[in-house]
């Protein structure tokens, strides 16, 4: 069995998994509608609260309403993307579904390497997540184009990179968990838990500096927080630069810090490159853990 034929098997298995996921139209719609509902709820209930926060920071200075709308819109949408990359990746995996339907046994008796099969689950999970998240991004960009669009090409590339790396992070993390279960109940439970909890512990649902000090330290230890801040930078750098033309630098810095466009790790500022490195290295470490678990499982079976 040469590498080329194993690669061909990988592409077919990945294609099969993606096709199966999107075959169920309701699953796709629910994956898409859930973050959109979240965005609508954000806009309806939180936008005015965040506008008030900005007004309290600028304290009497004049600021174009379009800039405020673009800032709050970008902030809220970056929150939706930061959570969706993880929640969609947890809910779009095929590994456990195959275990429940016993399709995994069919693959076990086919001449395909276990590692190829496992990799196909990760890849299809990643591609399914990316499809959903990029559709969301398109909707978000249309929304921002309506309220105020200040995203530069470089910021757009940063957003795209962050979507890919955060989705990969979520996908690998989900597949590590799915390796140990074959129960739909566990999958539903974990998905519900992640959907409910992740937005809070990655600083997506509320600015980190509004949390208690202990919680601030805790969330700064989680890689997801760095991905959220990267999204904030991608969506808000342009608006902040525009604000800089009418507001004093200290005020813009205050808004940036208050709304997590900048991040500090135990008092030390983390640069954009630092944010990228944290999320990238975390993803590589998770990939290593995933490979290690699969190697250990293979050895255990051989015994």
């Amino acid at each position, binding site marked *: *069995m040469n590498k080329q*034929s194993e690669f*061909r*098997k990988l592409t*077919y*298995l990945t*294609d*099969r998994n993606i*096709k*199966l996921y999107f*075959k*169920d139209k309701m699953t796709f719609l629910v994956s898409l509608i859930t973050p959109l509902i979240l965005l609508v709820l954000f806009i309806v209930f939180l936008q005015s609260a965040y506008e008030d926060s900005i007004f309290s920071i600028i304290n009497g200075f004049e600021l174009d309403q379009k800039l405020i709308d673009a800032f709050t819109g970008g902030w809220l949408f970056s929150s939706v993307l930061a959570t969706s990359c993880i929640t969609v990746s947890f809910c779009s995996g095929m590994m456990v579904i195959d275990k429940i*339907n*016993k*399709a995994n*046994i*069919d*693959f*076990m*008796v*086919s*001449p*395909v*390497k276990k590692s190829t099969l496992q990799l196909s689950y990760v890849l299809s999970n990643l591609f399914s997540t990316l499809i959903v998240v990029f559709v969301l991004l398109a909707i978000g960009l249309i929304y921002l184009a309506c309220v105020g669009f200040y995203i530069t090409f470089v910021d757009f590339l940063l957003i795209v990179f962050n979507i890919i790396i955060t989705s990969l992070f979520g996908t690998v993390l989900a597949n590590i968990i799915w390796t140990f279960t074959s129960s739909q109940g566990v999958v539903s439970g974990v998905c519900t838990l992640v959907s409910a909890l992740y937005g809070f512990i990655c600083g997506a649902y509320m600015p980190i500096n509004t949390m208690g000090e202990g919680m601030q330290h805790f969330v700064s230890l989680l890689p997801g927080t760095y991905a959220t801040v990267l999204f904030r930078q991608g969506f808000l750098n342009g608006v902040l630069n525009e604000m800089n033309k009418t507001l004093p630098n200290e005020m813009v810095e205050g808004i940036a810090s208050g709304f997590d466009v900048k991040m500090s790790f135990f008092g030390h500022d983390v640069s954009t490159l630092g944010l990228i490195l944290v999320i990238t290295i975390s993803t590589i470490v998770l990939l290593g853990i995933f490979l290690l678990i699969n190697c250990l499982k293979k050895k255990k*079976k*051989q*015994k």
Partner: protein
Amino acid sequence: MTHIIEIKNLKKYFSNTKAVDDISFSVEEGELFAFLGLNGAGKSTTINIIVGVLALNSGECFVNGFSIDERQKILPDIGIVFQSSVLDKNLSVYDNLRYRAMLYGMSKKEFEENLKFFSEKLEMKEIIKKQLSKLSGGQKRKVDIVRALLHKPKILILDEPTTGLDPKTRRLVWDMINEFRKTTNLTVLLTTHYMEEVSIADNVVIMDGGKIVAEGSPLTLKNKYAKDYIKAYKYDEKILAILDKANIPHNKDKKCLEIKFNDTEKAKDFLVEYSALFNDIEIVKGSMDDVFLSVTGKELKETV
């Protein structure tokens, strides 16, 4: 004859349960080999070890000359039909077969040719584009069998392939398998609860509690373990006294007198000696049910 499957002293334990307890057997190329046993006898565990789904605790297992440790060399020669379908219900028959075929390194052209062959042979053309979940039980089973045979394996493993199917579909399934056995040198390894399926096998292994309790051809097993019967419909009542005196087991009901013998020779000798006392008789060979009951002390219900 070549041994296409060879099992030596195979053991498999699940914590303290001996699922397979030191069994050895071999399967000849081209034969229909049947495993017979109740649920939990160790049949499916043995098959799962052969195809690499389960690891063995000790013993040796060779398929087509390769040790089962070399799964990638063994699996291209094996096709397996599971008790219930493991294909993707939300995909079409075509997609299901295409995705599986590609795992055997088949080119698209080769796949299309093989699919055409099987769909013509099994009259499947009208269901090829249909979603699997929309098919009847019999149609799904057809697809399962095509999935197992599409890559033209040397060994076809059937794990209770007709359980839950109606008699008409069971017949259809066996007609298909027999057709392929005729045209290819396909080896079939079968686990079943159905005696009629076992009786057409070349060799049978009866398993109980993880052990092989009997093996041989159906005829050998019947001769060894099952008693022959003389069924007498018209007879002289004097024969009853003779049977009692000779201590020959018998059973009389309204329809007939059933006399049991350990083998055909004894039945023949008895008939020759007392032919004048019988007017209407038949000699019935012991069934595989009798064999199973004799070697395990348990009854094999076909509804299991």
